[in-house]
């Protein structure tokens, strides 16, 4: 058996979509009951770490719009997806100390073995704008300081694993790994929690060596875009390896036995320090019925895979 978790935003049910649209009286209780349902589903699947399904979040950056001197701006496409997020404009320096905007937007009933995902600084800076900072590097480092403040409060409240979402590192052809590394140092230096950097929305085959040198506890891969043959060329003896085996972009349900075999083969070749399985990106790209099935399959894969 290996460990497992999900990350990102879960799908709202049809009922919740309608209730949100009409701002019905029962909206808050409906959000809570669906959140509870998703947490129970993760527990029932015996996932190693439990995530808030983030049903109130309109996109993965939205809670940060509550920070001082941050303004909501126009819609922008999420990479090549048919889904959009709101660009945030960081128009002053006052956001740097954070304001517990992540923790205050998480469900308080999460169990002790809990995890949370937030964007890593390079991706954050790529997706948003600032009138305050003249260079991308300066913007990235200041976002890292803000994220560290947020993460400190999350770790203090018991989060053991922090997922750092890094789609821009995967998607962008050119990545300045010096900036990525310096920003991640701000986040992870002396932190008393595991940090796992997740790459998706692009093939990182040629970047794995650089990724292995980053100051994080582990790396997560979307194997629909980065072939397992590329991952298997590297040793993960000093890193946690998370394989995004559950495809959040297709309703076809994974076959557990085939996935277990695949995970065992990857682990045999990469010899990771620890082995986790997860989804490849936010489950909200499929409707709720399919997401629930996939959570269950994820647990089955984790239970079936050989311990490392």
């Amino acid at each position: 058996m290996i460990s497992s978790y999900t990350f990102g935003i879960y799908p709202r049910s049809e009922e919740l979509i309608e209730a949100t649209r009409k701002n019905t009286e029962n909206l808050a209780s409906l959000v809570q009951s669906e959140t509870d349902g998703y947490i129970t589903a993760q527990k029932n699947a015996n996932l190693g770490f439990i995530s808030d399904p983030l049903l109130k979040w309109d996109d993965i950056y939205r809670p940060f719009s509550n920070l001082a001197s941050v303004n909501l701006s126009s819609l922008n496409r999420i990479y090549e997806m048919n889904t959009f997020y709101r660009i945030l404009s960081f128009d002053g320096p006052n956001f740097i100390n954070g304001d517990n905007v992540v923790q205050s937007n998480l469900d308080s009933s999460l169990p002790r073995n809990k995890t949370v995902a937030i964007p890593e600084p390079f991706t954050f800076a790529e997706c948003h704008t600032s009138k305050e900072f003249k260079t991308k590097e300066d913007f990235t480092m200041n976002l890292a300081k803000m994220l560290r403040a947020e993460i400190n409060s999350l770790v203090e409240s018991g989060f053991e694993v922090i997922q750092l979402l890094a789609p821009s590192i995967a998607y962008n052809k050119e990545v300045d790994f010096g900036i990525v590394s310096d920003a991640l140092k701000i986040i992870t230096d002396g932190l008393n929690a595991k940090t796992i950097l997740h790459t998706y929305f692009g093939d990182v085959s040629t970047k794995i060596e650089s990724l292995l040198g980053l100051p994080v506890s582990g790396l997560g891969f979307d194997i629909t875009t980065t072939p397992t043959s590329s991952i298997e060329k590297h040793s993960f003896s000093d890193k946690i390896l998370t394989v995004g085996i559950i495809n959040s972009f297709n309703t076809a349900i994974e076959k557990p036995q085939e996935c277990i075999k695949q995970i065992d083969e990857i682990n045999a070749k990469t010899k990771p320090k620890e082995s986790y399985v997860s989804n490849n990106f936010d489950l909200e790209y499929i409707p709720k019925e399919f997401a629930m099935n996939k959570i269950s399959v994820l647990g089955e894969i984790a239970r079936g895979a050989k311990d490392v």
Partner: protein
Amino acid sequence: MSKLFPTQEIGSLKKPADMLKKVKDPNVSDEEKIKVRNDAAISNIKTLEDIGLDIVYDGEVRRVEMYEEPVRYVDGFEFAGRVRSWDNKYYNKARVVGPVAFKQNFHAEEFNFVKENSNRELKVPITGAYTLADWSYDEHYKSKDELVLALAKNVVRPLVKDLVGLGAKIIQIDEPAATTHPAEMDIFRESINESVKGIDAKFVVHACFSGNDYQALAPQMPEIKAQQYTLEFANRDTWKEGLDDDSRKGFQVLKLFKEHGFEGEIGIGVSDVHVNEIESPELIRDRILYAAKALGDPTKVYVNPDCGLRTRTREVSFDKIRSMVKGAELARKATS
């Protein structure tokens, strides 16, 4: 068309509120619902004609939206549920669970009605194979390429053939997903070519702007069997009048199309469909004149909004189209 700078719409307009109210009302009879839809279609057609558009359609007033409408009528699809577009806006996404196949011409009734009620040239918008594939979950085909080509050959081509048989002369293939995957342009090209294979009509391809600024599309344009592209330019252009490159920065990519050897027509988007401000006729004139110079041939320039106007109010939409028609007239005077 012999007239210089012909004007046209892209497709969708916001549906009239009174029509929506009646068609959703369970107490309204089916006959009455047909009548209110017909009335709304006639209202759109006549308004667009009165404003002075040279090429018209009905504002897609009968369609649910551009993805769900065709998928409802194609074998091989099953709706999975709603998936977020942004915030709490969702669209109904379908799974491909078997071989895709054309069942019936789902635009026939609409086309016949528009044909009976307009004397202008008609441009029929349909959703392209690549976009239908890209916006679906594929559980049946081995690859995206295979699904795209199956949709092109087995769904879009029979639909186009049937529409042409009914008298359609201009078909616009809407492909908003095309430019979102720059690495998949080869399969996009094949999908259009397979969709129109052996059919005698004028084909227009509409592709929305993406971060790639049509850079990936440009090399494919001469190889795609389309006589015209209707594309977005206004949404990243300046609002300053003038014919200089700095003022017309949204239109500079036109030069790239020419460099890659494209010699067909471009329907230039002169109105930004994401803002309520109305572009002045003088600004539109300058956008047209700049495009004519960039393409080196004014007869290649058609004039339209960037995209469908359904996200604007009807008042704003018609004001934008009105200004567009006036701008085209100013451009004709400046060219004569």
